């Protein structure tokens, strides 16, 4: 059974059928890419997968469990975490606090304990801090742990967003254009980081990307989306050589 099974997914906005008959199957620990021209509906699909939108057709199964109808919070608890096209960090909080929020559901103590500082507060805060620093180390952000998140350079902000998503302990990580705005060096670094995350956290990763170097470099499988529908799918090699795909991207 694949980790993520999506069948016949669809949604309309007003009169526009934004996504239609969308299928995808992502195996455990696979690095899978969702590509397509701008406006094809890729982020809409991420929004459908994370409960921001409710589909009017189709099914979404994570590890066999149905996700349609659940809200964003429950979907995250069930195991899907994401990053956003326009980085959504907690900008007035510190770098480490951003990650600590990601750890919220996995290390808890009561609010009463928070106010009156019972022993559980100290014990769990220590756990949270240690775990958060571990995650920051993975992304090379431990030096800046007390910086304000909005003061980080762009590339590091993207990494922080991924770190925060990872902190929620997901089974499936959705990355929305993680290389956007990065130069070739940063992109190379990001590729290594994504591979590291998959290998060491045994993470399944589905990413949206326009940067073909990254896509061809790390994706093991691809689905191409055009006008809300699947244009092609298969291994990276197959898809990138598919004439229909080339036509969709470059025009006639």
């Amino acid at each position, binding site marked *: 059974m694949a980790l993520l099974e999506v069948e016949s997914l669809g949604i309309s906005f007003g009169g526009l059928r934004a996504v239609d008959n969308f299928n995808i199957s992502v195996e455990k620990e696979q690095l899978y890419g969702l590509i397509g021209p701008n406006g094809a509906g890729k*982020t809409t699909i991420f*929004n459908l997968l994370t409960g*921001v939108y409710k589909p009017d057709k189709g099914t979404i199964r994570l590890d066999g469990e149905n996700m349609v109808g659940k809200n964003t919070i429950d979907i995250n608890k069930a195991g899907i975490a994401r990053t*956003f096209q326009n980085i959504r960090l907690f900008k007035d909080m510190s770098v480490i606090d951003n990650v600590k929020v990601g750890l919220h559901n996995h290390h808890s103590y009561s609010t009463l304990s928070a106010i009156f500082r019972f022993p559980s507060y100290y014990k769990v805060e220590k756990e949270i801090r240690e775990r958060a620093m571990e995650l920051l180390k993975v992304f090379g952000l431990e030096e800046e742990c007390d910086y304000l998140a909005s003061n980080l350079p762009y590339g590091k902000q993207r990494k922080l967003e991924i770190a925060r998503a990872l902190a929620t302990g997901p089974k499936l990580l959705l990355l929305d254009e993680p290389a956007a705005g990065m130069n070739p060096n940063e992109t190379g670094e990001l590729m290594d980081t994504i591979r590291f995350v998959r290998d060491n956290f045994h993470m399944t990763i589905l990413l949206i990307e326009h940067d073909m170097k990254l896509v061809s470099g790390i994706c093991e499988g691809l689905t191409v989306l055009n006008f809300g529908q699947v244009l092609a799918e298969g291994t990276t090699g197959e898809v990138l050589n598919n004439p229909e795909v080339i036509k969709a991207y470059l025009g006639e």
Partner: protein
Amino acid sequence: MMGFISYLVNGISLGSVYALIALGYTMVYGIAKMLNFAHGDVIMIGSYVVFSTVSTMGLPPAAGILISVAVCTVLGVVIERIAYRPLRQASKLVVLITAIGVSYFLQNVALLIYGANTKSFTSVVTIPPLSLAGGALIISGETIVTILACIVIMIVLTLFIRHSKPGRAMLAVSEDGGAAQLMGVNVDGTIALTFAIGSALAAVAGVLLCSSYPSLTPYTGAMPGIKAFVAAVFGGIGSIPGAFIGGILLGIIEILGKAYISSQLADAIVFAVLIVVLLVKPTGILGRQIQEKV
């Protein structure tokens, strides 16, 4: 039955005043993206100017009104230039507090000049009351003038915004200030114009309010200002027809509430209706749902 119609008409009249004030609120909010908390106090200043020119100096009412409109227009533009424009990049909360400061300022200027004693305002309306249904229903001249003035102003304003260049500039800035600027729209001038129009409307509203309810103190503008703000939100903040509908409805609810339920609770009823409406339609009656892009 006649009683009900009489209350209804008075409600529409009071509502017209609220509508005129709400128009100023909603235009400034839609175009300058700020809550001008001092708006209610501009009304009060306008009323005092009419009071000074007509009751104290003995000028004819028409002249008093014109002077009042002129003073308020200038006042509105000056306030915007000094207190709000420097803070255009700041958060909305900061501008709100500054507006509160301006409100305190205006109230205390009036307090210093005129004192806290209630001034008796002479109505500027010279039309005699209308007697209908054989004397069972009497509509005061003030009420008639207020409603007519509101309708006329609404029509003129709508035409102005749709068909004139500065009017369309206002629409553009309210949609996207940055893009409007890049298109060559004079954003500063447009915002100044918005404040000018809003303040002029406030002056008219003040005169009409005090003609119907003739007591004037430095704090006369505050509660109508709040209620007009409620009306603007009620109708959908940023929407001009919304401000009109919101204002009229608010006036009707307030008068009917005072008449049929309790005069002490009238305000509470008005606010309660607002809450109920917003729970059902969170962006107000004619408000637009602005979807946040994820």
